[in-house]
């Protein structure tokens, strides 16, 4: 396994007291695999990514438990300096809004070249040449000339390509992309996702794709982990999850996506709102919004992650489907 997150918990100190933003999250990613982490805002997906990267703002945030094994080493036990060396070099991150994630007073060529100067100790000239090569690789036209431009002079899609180039610069084994296409137009979204998928194949990187957009992940991801209220509620290979969701929340999400074959019918929606992280409901956090919730869903403890096995599809067993729904059998079956 390239990355194994085990039982990770992150808490934040807020005015309302301690809030548990991530609660016992477990993820696994093999080299060259793409895992999509799907969830609404506030579900803890970005905080999980920050904790894995080691860029959690602390205070107020702190990791209260769990392990983050990167190629077998627990990152949480490393010193700050050791972690810094891993960032950029072995694992890198792509941010949602490239305009704010690039330094406005430095040219993009300089910022790209900085990756090589800092981590590889290259000369200015050499690193500048590498920067242009990278910009070319991610499909920025006239790269040599554009290297001297500032971030605000690029269009949104081009800027995200620069961001991708920066993350890619040192050919890390793992890239975490936090909503990489949310700030982009739909047409540009597809181009950026294609580029990301292509580069992942080419460099055989592991990719964690954090998103709230079901449409974005369908083509790109190998597996999906669905998060709700700081926990993972379902994990499954993409096809399985789309075809037969094993958690009522996933099911609700899929039904609320507009589909051509249901044209003219009213669009289904999940009733209610996601819970505030400071007041997570007892038992299954989704029960107040769940159409099939029963007494045992309301009562603690939180439902465990059940292994989802389907007699009809034995091939799916090996993929390790899990669901945190007491009634996953009904959900899958119906």
């Amino acid at each position, binding site marked *: 396994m390239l990355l194994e997150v085990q039982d990770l918990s992150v808490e934040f100190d807020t005015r309302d007291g301690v809030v548990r933003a991530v609660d016992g999250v477990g993820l696994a990613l093999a080299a060259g695999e793409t895992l999509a982490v799907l969830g609404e805002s506030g579900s803890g997906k970005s905080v999980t990514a920050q904790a894995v990267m080691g860029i959690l703002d602390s205070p107020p945030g702190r990791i209260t438990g769990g392990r983050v094994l990167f190629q077998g080493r627990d990152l949480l036990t490393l010193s700050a300096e050791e972690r810094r060396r891993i960032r950029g070099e072995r694992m890198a991150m792509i*941010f949602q809004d490239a305009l704010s994630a690039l*330094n406005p*007073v430095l040219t993009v060529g300089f910022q790209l070249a900085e990756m090589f100067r800092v981590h590889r100790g290259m000369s200015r000239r050499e690193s500048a040449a590498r920067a242009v090569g990278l910009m070319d690789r991610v499909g920025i036209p006239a790269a040599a000339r554009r290297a001297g431009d500032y971030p605000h002079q*690029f269009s949104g899609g081009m800027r995200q390509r620069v961001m991708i180039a920066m993350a890619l610069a040192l050919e890390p084994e793992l890239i975490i992309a936090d909503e990489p296409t949310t700030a982009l137009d739909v047409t540009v979204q597809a181009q950026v996702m294609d580029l990301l998928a292509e580069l992942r194949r080419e460099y055989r990187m592991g990719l964690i794709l954090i998103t709230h957009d079901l449409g974005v992940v369908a083509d790109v991801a190998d597996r999906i982990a669905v998060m709700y209220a700081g926990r993972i509620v379902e994990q499954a290979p993409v096809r399985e999850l789309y075809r037969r969701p094993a958690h009522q929340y996933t099911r609700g999400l899929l039904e609320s996506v507009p589909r051509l074959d249901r044209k003219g019918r009213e669009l289904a929606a999940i009733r209610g709102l996601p819970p505030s992280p400071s007041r997570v409901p007892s038992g299954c956090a989704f029960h107040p919004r769940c159409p099939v919730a029963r007494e045992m869903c309301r009562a603690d403890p939180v439902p465990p992650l059940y292994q989802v096995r389907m007699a009809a599809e034995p091939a799916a067993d090996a993929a390790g489907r899990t669901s945190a729904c007491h009634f996953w059998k009904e959900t899958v079956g119906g």
Partner: protein
Amino acid sequence: MLAGAGASGPTPVPASAGDGAVPPGGRQPDSPTAPGPAAPPPPTAASGPEASAPAGEARGLWTDAWHDLRRNPVFVVSALLILFLLVIALWPGLIAGQDPQRCELGRSLQGPSAGHWFGFDTQGCDVYTRTVYGARASIAVGVCATLGVAVLGTVVGGLAGFFGGFWDGLLSRLTDVFFGIPMVLGAIVFLSMVTLTGIWPVVVVIAALSWPQIARIARGAVLTAKEHDYVQAARALGAGTPRVLLRHILPNAIAPVIVMATIMLGTFIALEATLSYLGVGLKPPSVSWGVDISAASDGMQFRNAPHILFYPAAALSVTVLAFIMLGDAVRDALDPKLR
């Protein structure tokens, strides 16, 4: 459509553009912003080589600021004035051939005459020569004190804002302590204790009592800058603390400090004159405008010979005004909200 010309293909590039060190400001074919206004030649643009740069072109903060400044008459006037003052501060002999210390008591308080346009002061020294030479001390005090204040204030305020928590508390309270000391009172107490002469005690006391203003501004600017995504992004790509501070936070937080420092420079020159007038700043035989103003008001000499007060006071006022105007112009240019 006018934008068609820009979008049809890349504009020709100079051959030197191969190494990535292209100066900023190249117009890009796929830019979604600023299509229309740049296409026709701007009718109001001045003639000359600069006119070929289209007005709607996108640039960085500093390039933009420079672009604005060059067209701001307030900046041009104050900058030329300051340039002139700097030149005569460095080489006063260029426009004043005499020695400011060579005085003839016999010519005491003589009015302006040919060859001595500003007349003579109480000691019979040439007022013109002394006014020219006085620029050196005044500007030296202003520039040195400003540099000291800018460095000290930026370091203290920047560290407080960046590290926050305990360090912020400690450094901010320290700032408050110094902020609470009245400027003139503190300077009088300090300067009447030291026995050193020359500009350094004055520079030190001004810097020591004025840095809290810059520290507060720098702290606020760093607090804002460190919240930006690019700081987190830089960390996510492996930048260490010194690099984040110097490369990503400082350049994005320095603009308000520069503006404040420029405005303060003028007030420091006035402060030097104030302290010299009160008898604790520079003292004769040092030559400075403050010293001359002080001498002119001794025994109300200026009632009979107003020229001995007027010229150094006018030079002081013009200099202070020039620096404050420059600070204003720089602030306007660096503040995108005022654009």
